[in-house]
């Protein structure tokens, strides 16, 4: 899923200070699961902002809404009236959700309330970590199912650098495992260590972000 994190309150406060009618819109998909922007987070943010501006006269009006998936216009349709009423919209969805609102409601001022971080998974309760950078050309089969592009800090494809120590990555030994240690262990477990003898040619990054914004068109699905 897409993993996000609420922006510091002070930053949000600075963004919304100039408005008096605010709509906060959460998204009950990825950002709800990673506890950054679901219905509960919307309610918390709203309560916090009301408290922050509690002395303002007239009182700041804050409307709280959450939609099923903010990246889909159909789900956002119910927001039309509130968006028209609000001076600004604070979106707690990922960046995709924010931009969907912008495209769908071209007159609205839409502000992001979360930082969209990565595609990842929950390792345990309250801990999420990145698993995929969306390079557009999956090579997981070659590395025992562990992605060196995402999980190696240097995205190395032909073995570890010199900074791997006790299975940890030199970039952040406390928090990062060396992906190449994981790959080695996994291949050893599968009895496929010989795969490491194959030299991996330089990666074609054109399928990744470096080819510009990407788009998929399924011809069979477009009339």
């Amino acid at each position, binding site marked *: 899923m897409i993993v996000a994190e609420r922006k510091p309150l002070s930053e949000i406060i600075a963004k919304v200070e100039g408005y008096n009618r605010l709509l906060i819109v959460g998204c009950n*998909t990825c950002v709800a*699961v990673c506890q950054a922007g*679901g219905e*509960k987070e919307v309610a918390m943010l709203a*309560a916090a902002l009301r408290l922050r501006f509690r002395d303002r006269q007239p009182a700041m009006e804050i409307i709280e809404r959450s939609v099923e998936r903010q990246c889909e216009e159909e789900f956002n349709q119910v927001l039309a009236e509130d968006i028209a009423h609000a001076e600004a919209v604070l979106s707690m969805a990922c960046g995709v959700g924010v931009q969907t609102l912008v495209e769908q409601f071209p007159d609205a001022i839409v502000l992001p309330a979360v930082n969209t971080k990565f595609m990842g998974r929950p390792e345990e309760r309250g801990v999420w970590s990145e698993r995929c950078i969306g390079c557009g050309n999956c090579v997981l089969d070659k590395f025992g199912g562990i992605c060196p592009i995402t999980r190696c800090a240097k995205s190395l494809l032909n073995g570890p650098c010199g900074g791997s120590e006790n299975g940890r990555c030199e970039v952040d030994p406390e928090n990062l495992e060396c992906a190449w240690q994981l790959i080695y262990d996994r291949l050893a477990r599968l009895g496929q260590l010989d795969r490491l003898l194959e030299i991996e040619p330089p990666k074609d990054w054109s399928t990744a972000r470096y080819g510009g914004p990407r788009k998929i068109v399924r011809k069979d699905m477009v009339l």
Partner: protein
Amino acid sequence: MSQATPVAKQVLVLGASSEAARAVKELLALGYKVLWVSGDELPSNGLDSPALAKYANCRLYALEGHVGRFVSHFLHQGQRLALSTSAIIVATGNERYFPAERYGLELSSLVWTTSQVKEQLKKPLPQSVLAFRDKRILLLLDWSGETSKELVSESFSLAGELCERCRSEVYFFYRDLTVDSPGWEQRTRELRDKGVVFCRYGEPEVTVGEAAVSISYLEGTVEGDLLVLPEAVRPRGDTAELAEILQVRLGEDGYFQELNIRKYRAGLSARKGIFFAGRCHMDCDASEAESDALQVVAAVDALLGQGALEPEEVIAYVDPSKCIRCLTCVRTCPHAAVQVVEYEDMDVVAARVDELACWGCGACASNCPVQAIEMVGQEMPAWVQGV
């Protein structure tokens, strides 16, 4: 919502320990159907009844359901076996080992464990007695670390038996003499009367020679023919695996049941309907373990004896139409009462709190990212809903 659910008076007892046997016997006497299952051999101690089904050498590999309707899945003689019970008593006991490293000593003809002495004493006469006849035996307790109650108790018994049956001269070395169980002080006094010599040490010096052993302590040196060391106990090797299957947490020390004064000794696990009895969760000797089994049976009967279960006054309820199946509640619930299931009548997949397994603690509700869980029966002020 608070309707009583009928439950069968049927209990699964896990383990081959003496406390398991005691629990089985007591449950049968109370009219329960008992399924007695162990990964090892089961003792053949005349416990037979039409209400008892025994399965030895049987491995639990999965547990489904909740209190009142657990389904345990076993592998038994190559066959899969599913057993339904209303409650589960875990009485798997503990495991003994000789802590050679801690003692810095190897077992030999001069250095025995308490178990070895016990085994020898069980042999037929005169073998059993001759091994210790007129010998001076040095029993050394709590040397280099903790000593379990079970082994202290056993050492007391051995010291008495050696004195009485074998006319051995027994020296009982200790740092702190454990007498904190009813009647134990009396036991030590009786041992003194039988001739056991109690010696307190600070840091003893143990020497194992060619033909004799000696212990130097505060008041001098005692030489003997045999050094007897208690073994140590630890959680059984399969405890962690079993805990995972039962979805209960282990304490820091690897035994069942975290030390929690609200629960420990009461035999209650964090999961309703799962109970711990005896040495798999507490430090006690064999007879205390059996007593523990009895009080656990009393708790089981208080739960199931009336033939029906009722939910707590406050329980969590998931609104399936709001649930986003994020698993937060499943991961948070300390009582393993939440699962993501298919609501057949509503044709949705969502989290469901088992109303009988729920303790009503509310951890799921306060963690839910979409406010889909309500604590039914909990009164909250109006402002909680927003001003």
